[in-house]
């Protein structure tokens, strides 16, 4: 491709912006293998800090909590979101916009607002903060994610396919089970993976609604950062980056299909 002056200039800026996006993560990962307590000076390659992670009982407990919250809240939003997306797709008339807005509300709300509102709500209804309140919180902000993604897939689905199934004698349930579900399954799995990733990564809402003993991985990372830096955080961060990248990559592949 021929490049004029502006092209080179554009390319330079674009490259620089990309470097800005990736360098911090890259540097962090590289230094997670640093064999030194002084984390910013390179002393040689080592798996040491990953070993430390593996023996950190509090961290492992937090990871288990995160996993549990992720699985439970994701299952919940899929069970709630799939029928909701299908219902929205079938809805006609003036009410659609109102219903849509209510569903999207958690997506447009600032996270802090979502966190304090849930906290206040749980306190008011005297619901003790626990891992359960965290699951509810995550399911609240992840529901629109599933609804939006599944609905996008449903909108791309030819409505004639469902009509064809009905015409060939299928009941409503058979139409869903034999036609609709196989066609949207990858998108639903993709949405679920994304919701799981967001749940795994969430800090703010968890921060407000987590009860004692329900520390999740991000909460643990936060308190580690606040209480003084150790190369252990680099190792943990690198793992988390790798994990989200893998999950999101898989989710994207599934949604493409």
């Amino acid at each position, binding site marked *: 491709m021929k490049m004029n002056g502006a092209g080179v200039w554009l390319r330079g800026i674009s490259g620089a912006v990309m470097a800005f996006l990736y360098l911090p993560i890259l540097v962090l990962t590289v230094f997670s293998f640093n064999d030194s307590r002084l984390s910013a000076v390179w002393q040689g390659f080592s798996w040491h800090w990953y070993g430390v992670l593996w023996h950190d009982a509090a961290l492992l407990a937090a990871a288990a909590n995160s996993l549990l919250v992720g699985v439970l809240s994701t299952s919940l939003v899929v069970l709630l979101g799939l029928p909701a997306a299908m219902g929205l797709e079938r809805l006609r008339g003036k009410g659609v916009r109102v219903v849509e807005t209510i569903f999207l509300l958690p997506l447009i709300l600032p996270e802090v607002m979502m966190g304090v509102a849930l906290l206040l709500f749980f306190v008011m209804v005297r619901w003790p903060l626990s891992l359960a309140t965290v699951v509810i919180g995550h399911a609240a902000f992840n529901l629109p994610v599933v609804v939006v993604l599944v609905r996008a897939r449903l909108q791309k689905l030819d409505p004639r396919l469902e009509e064809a*199934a009905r*015409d060939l*004698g299928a009941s409503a349930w058979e139409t869903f089970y034999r036609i609709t579900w*196989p066609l949207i399954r990858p998108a639903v799995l993709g949405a679920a993976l994304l919701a799981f990733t967001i749940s795994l990564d969430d800090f703010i809402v968890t921060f407000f609604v987590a009860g004692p003993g329900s520390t999740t991985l991000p909460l643990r990372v936060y308190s580690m950062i606040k209480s003084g830096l150790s190369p252990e955080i680099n190792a943990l961060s690198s793992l988390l980056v790798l994990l989200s990248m893998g999950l999101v990559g898989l989710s994207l592949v599934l949604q493409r299909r």
Partner: protein
Amino acid sequence: MNDLSIDIRALVKRHGETVAVDHVSLQIRRGEFFSLLGPSGAGKTSLLRMLAGFETPDAGEIHIDGRSMADVPPNRRPVNLVFQSYALFPHMTVAGNVAFGLEMQRVPRGEIAGRVEATLELVRLSDKRDRMPGQLSGGEQQRVALARALVNRPAVVLLDEPLAALDQQLRQQMQSELKSIQVQVGITFVCVTHHQEEALALSDRLAVMRQGRVMQVGRPEDLYERPENLFVARFVGASNEIEGVLASVEAGTGDLLPQGLAPMRGIRVSVPAGLQSGAPVVMTVRPERIRVTPGQGAEAGGNCLHGVVETMRYIGSEWQGVVRIGESVRWTIHAPNAGSGNRPVAVGAPVLLHWSPDDGVVIPLI
């Protein structure tokens, strides 16, 4: 009565303000290839979707094989639809698609295999049975869609613009294939199309629709030779028209006195029953019934008008031209390609147009 397949009585369907189907009544016989022909917005697709059960009539009734279809959902109707977009299930093989309807009806597995095989044989797709729909050509997809409907042996197969998605050449080939399959299976076919040539070629009978109403029902030759109104005359084939008033009507024949034209002699026409002298009418003649000769001298017998050739185009099999008669009447003419591509008449030349009184169809102006 017992050879009636579909009985539609005073069917009405409104979409908001517009009336999509306006008091349509039709009787379709068993084993008949019946077409609904009309421009877009004529209500033919609405009618088809009401037959399939996807739309509910606002008034009127549909009976299929003598059974009322009111409150019968699409999955319980003895009809199967071939969708315009085919709507083949993209995640199932060809055989899977064809077997779907039988599986839904809980037909025993052994029987399903046999019927699927036989139907794929019928549409000549046995070798493609394990392909996915995405791997098939347009014509093959069309045949799968047809097989998927036929395999259920429904009382009626509905076809929504079955050939619209195919290119010109494939269209003609599929036309004859569709017709021969229909004859073989003997099932009632109801076909929606906006393509008049296709409707004429395929149908035993057809209904021409316009703005929700049926304009005329009949065999293809009835509609082409004896259109009952100007819409049908113009929509089915080309129509050359002269407005005028009837005179000296007697025993089914009469004279047409054209408006603003001085014919060489009175135009003889056959007059449908019920029209009297003095009735304002339009006479229409098909282009291929008109004989064109150069010059001005009148010949004896038949009808004859003067004209001037305005355009002439060569399309290979024949010449097609426009002749101006008087000030503003323009007729389309088709002249046979007599040989060596010679122009039968020159542009700008005065010509004579001849046609037989039997070929002029008189349509009353209301």
